[in-house]
């Protein structure tokens, strides 16, 4: 396909760029309202405890304190089940995570909120709230939580086993299974079988901006929220649900957002701030400290995964079996479903069984993190695939090519792939300058891995109004985390035949734009871009009618290209026609609302060279290439940016990052010093190769590029460490102590 585009594929400067390099852009915490109060949330010091008594009287008596709230101030959730975009969930869980009722389930669990004239006074007051706890035993990992006799988090959590309620209370919320073919017959055909079990630590998305919101419960009963969120409508719906208000009474204005990666989808602070505002009659700002972000927002699950793959002598995979137990944290809903869907999805294997377990533990309730669930899973699978390649003496990319999923391949979860770019990604890896360049030197190794993420659709809305000067104003509802105002505006500009600089995009509040799902699932350039495309087409349809009116021809006889309308020898530019709108019937506004079904999954690959210091176990990244199928790269610089960012997060996940927990369930490293994310000094330049296999489900072929790039790095780095140091790593992070331990175990000379 060689469609010629004017705007798509270029690299214009983003529309919000000047605001963001001058400090003018207003992020979550940058709003200041008259009479603003500052809040503080008192949090549990215990990982698991019964709340015996809360006495807020001393806090309320402190001068400067205007309101104190606890769970008792929230409306009862009863047994309501709600779907707020993340599947059906008991409202009591969502409410319980906002303010603990009865029990605290993790260190950092919110217990009470205070609003005062300053943040310092609020913090002081929180220290005066008396809470008596009856401390309970805690459980911190999925394997421990699944054991008979483990401490139970929820006395009402009945295990669902293969779709059926069992009647048994345990920490396993759900056990599900995907199967395809005949597993036993498959393994019987195998000449080589590799099976390994892996453990990965809880990690955090690590966005630099803490969660923050400002809420005003107005005297007319309207609740206004300004916050940092990936989805203003999710905040609106969740806040309304928890406060038992009609959604139309809540208005959410999404401020600029300082990173999210999935972690800014759930609602943590808004209902508490709303109650504090209601009690005090003034707007209230609540902001998490960095420690709160680690201990009380939603990291991504730690996991316990077994993968077993069987292959014939000539390298054909004949059977695959996987078991994934993911730590949901305090409430059910670990991203184990997506993990199970992705774990063997890159390969065409006829006989597959995948078991998933959603397990609650005494850690923060987990949230999505960039291709949620898939990175843990690919670490396991890609390590096993590398070992099979080694055992069979086949090049690891050749082995992947031989088994790559293609159009028509059926996944174990039942989905049959449409046009996908798995083969093209592996070919691009093989043909890359990086892969063709030999790696030399002692203690060095190269690893490869691939990864899959299915991407999301969800509803999006967009309106485009035409100005008399030939510019257009585009209103959409997707929080812009990485340049999507521009990637969306570019798609409208392409349809309208005007420069992207003449499209002025605005991210609107929930009163001003139609329902739009979260900025997540790599969906924004895909789905909101599609809404912009369709809205632009709606504009063009109306403009053709106006031109037809001017020329007294039928609208179907008017054609448009590159911003010029033509019919029967007549011609008029977009700008000239825009000047004549009032004279031809009034303003032109295009609109579209979509809920696209043609989501195109994205494959990605990594080639990485490392050096492992045999004395310290420290792994240094020497060279790193990220390869990804974008479908169509609307703004290639932003696509590269997504690939580089996902790679850096994947490197951090692989080598350093983890929640380091004490036996009592407290996080020992809840600062950005001790939770060690990659710095500029830890990374090389990150090379990128964009592959474009158009998604037939999008008018320009877009797949979405936000997530798949984080999936392969840990597996690729594990394989590189193996080829450098001779050890197969079975846990994340592969930090110096872990690598050293593996080296010592291998040489059986572990010092006493």
């Amino acid at each position, binding site marked *: 396909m060689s469609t010629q585009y004017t705007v798509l594929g270029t690299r214009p400067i983003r529309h919000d760029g000047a605001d*963001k*390099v001058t400090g003018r852009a207003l992020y979550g915490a940058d709003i200041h309202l008259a009479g603003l109060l500052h809040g503080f949330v008192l949090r549990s010091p215990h990982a698991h405890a019964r709340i015996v008594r809360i006495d807020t009287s001393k806090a309320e008596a402190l001068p400067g304190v205007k309101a104190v709230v606890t769970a008792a101030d929230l409306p009862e959730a009863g047994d309501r089940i709600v779907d707020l975009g993340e599947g059906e969930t008991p409202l009591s869980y969502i409410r319980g995570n906002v303010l603990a009722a009865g029990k605290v389930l993790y260190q950092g669990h919110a217990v009470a909120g205070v609003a005062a004239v300053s943040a*310092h006074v609020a913090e002081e007051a929180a220290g005066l709230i008396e809470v008596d706890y009856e401390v309970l035993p805690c459980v911190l990992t999925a394997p421990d939580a699944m054991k008979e006799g483990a401490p139970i988090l929820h006395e009402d959590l009945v295990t669902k086993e293969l779709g059926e309620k069992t009647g048994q209370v345990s920490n396993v919320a759900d056990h599900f299974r995907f199967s395809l073919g005949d597993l036993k017959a498959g393994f019987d055909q195998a000449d080589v079988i590799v099976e390994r079990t892996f453990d990965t630590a809880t990690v955090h998305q690590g966005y*630099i901006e803490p969660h923050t919101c400002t809420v005003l419960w107005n005297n007319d009963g309207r609740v206004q929220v300004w916050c940092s969120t990936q989805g203003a409508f999710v905040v609106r719906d969740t806040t309304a649900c928890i406060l038992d208000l009609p959604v139309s009474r809540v208005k959410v204005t999404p401020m600029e957002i*300082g990173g999210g*990666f999935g972690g800014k989808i759930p609602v943590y602070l808004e209902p508490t701030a709303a109650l504090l505002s209601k009690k005090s009659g003034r707007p209230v700002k609540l902001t998490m400290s960095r420690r709160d972000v680690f201990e009380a927002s939603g990291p991504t699950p730690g996991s316990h995964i077994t993968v077993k793959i069987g292959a014939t002598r000539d390298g054909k995979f004949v059977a695959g079996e996987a078991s994934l137990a993911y730590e949901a944290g305090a409430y059910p809903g670990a991203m184990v479903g997506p993990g199970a869907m992705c774990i063997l999805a890159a390969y065409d294997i006829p006989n597959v069984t995948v078991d998933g377990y959603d397990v609650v533990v005494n850690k923060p309730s987990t949230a999505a993190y960039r291709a949620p669930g898939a990175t843990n899973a690919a670490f396991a699978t890609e390590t096993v695939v590398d070992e099979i390649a080694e055992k069979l003496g086949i090049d690891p990319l050749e082995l992947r090519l031989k088994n790559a999923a293609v159009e028509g391949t059926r996944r174990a979860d039942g989905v049959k792939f449409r046009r996908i770019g798995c083969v093209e990604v592996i070919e691009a890896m093989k043909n890359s300058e990086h892969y063709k360049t030999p790696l030399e030197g002692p203690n060095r190794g190269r690893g490869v891995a691939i990864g899959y993420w299915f991407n999301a659709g969800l509803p999006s809305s967009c309106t485009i109004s035409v100005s008399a000067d030939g510019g257009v104003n585009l209103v959409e509802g997707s929080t812009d985390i990485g340049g999507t105002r521009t990637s969306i505006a570019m798609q409208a500009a392409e349809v309208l035949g005007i420069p992207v600089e003449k499209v002025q995009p605005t991210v609107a509040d929930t009163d001003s734009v139609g329902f739009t799902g979260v900025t997540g699932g790599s969906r924004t350039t895909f789905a909101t871009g599609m809404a912009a495309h369709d809205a632009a087409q709606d504009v063009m349809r109306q403009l053709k009618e106006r031109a037809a009116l001017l020329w007294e021809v039928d609208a179907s006889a008017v054609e448009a290209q590159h911003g010029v309308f033509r019919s029967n020898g007549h011609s008029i530019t977009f700008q000239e026609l825009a000047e004549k709108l009032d004279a031809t019937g009034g303003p032109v506004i295009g609109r579209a609302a979509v809920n696209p079904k043609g989501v195109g999954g994205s494959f990605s690959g990594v080639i990485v060279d490392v050096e492992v210091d045999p004395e310290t176990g420290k792994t240094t990244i020497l060279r790193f290439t990220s390869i990804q199928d974008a479908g169509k790269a609307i703004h290639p610089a932003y696509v590269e*940016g997504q690939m580089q960012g996902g790679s850096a997060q994947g490197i951090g996940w692989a080598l350093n990052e983890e929640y380091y927990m004490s036996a009592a369930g407290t996080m020992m490293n809840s600062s*950005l010093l001790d939770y060690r994310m990659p*710095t500029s*000094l830890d990374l090389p330049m990150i090379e990128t190769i964009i592959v474009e296999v158009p998604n037939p489900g999008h008018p320009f072929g877009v797949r979405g590029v936000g997530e798949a790039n984080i999936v392969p790095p840990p597996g690729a780095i594990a394989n590189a460490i193996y080829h450098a140091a001779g050890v197969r790593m079975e846990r994340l992070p592969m930090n110096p102590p872990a690598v050293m331990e593996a080296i010592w175990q291998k040489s059986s000379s572990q010092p006493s």
Partner: protein
Amino acid sequence: MHKRVQVNTTINGEPAEFLCEPRQSLLECLRDIVGLTGTKEGCNDGNCGACTVILDGRIVTSCLVLGVEAEGAEITTIEGIARGNKLHPLQQSFLENAALQCGICTPGFIIAAKALFDENPHPNEHEVRAWLANNLCRCTGYDKIVRAIMQAADMNVEEVKA
């Protein structure tokens, strides 16, 4: 409530006085009292660099400086980098190189890079990476940030140091 103290400073070339409590950080003073919200809070313990400002010629994380310590000091924040309507070469280069995604760390990076140029107008890649090691970015993997700073360093030295 604690008694407030008057602090006299120069911010972005203009005299600026503010009243603050002795326990308030310079970051709080800049954001909540002076109203310069371009300086960002990421961690409030000196580890992320989002609140980086230049204080008497040195870069500091303003969350670790008390407002009262700024008495008599000259402070440069992200709001003081552009010259009128013209962006500083670093700002322009960040835009041209797509060196920001969410943008929350960007003010800190631009301020830190400006301070680097004041000491070393032509840094190599390693010098840039070492200088920026106290500024965390979670979106970009640093690649495009480092490139943007290297490109800005190739621009007119006087303009860069301005």
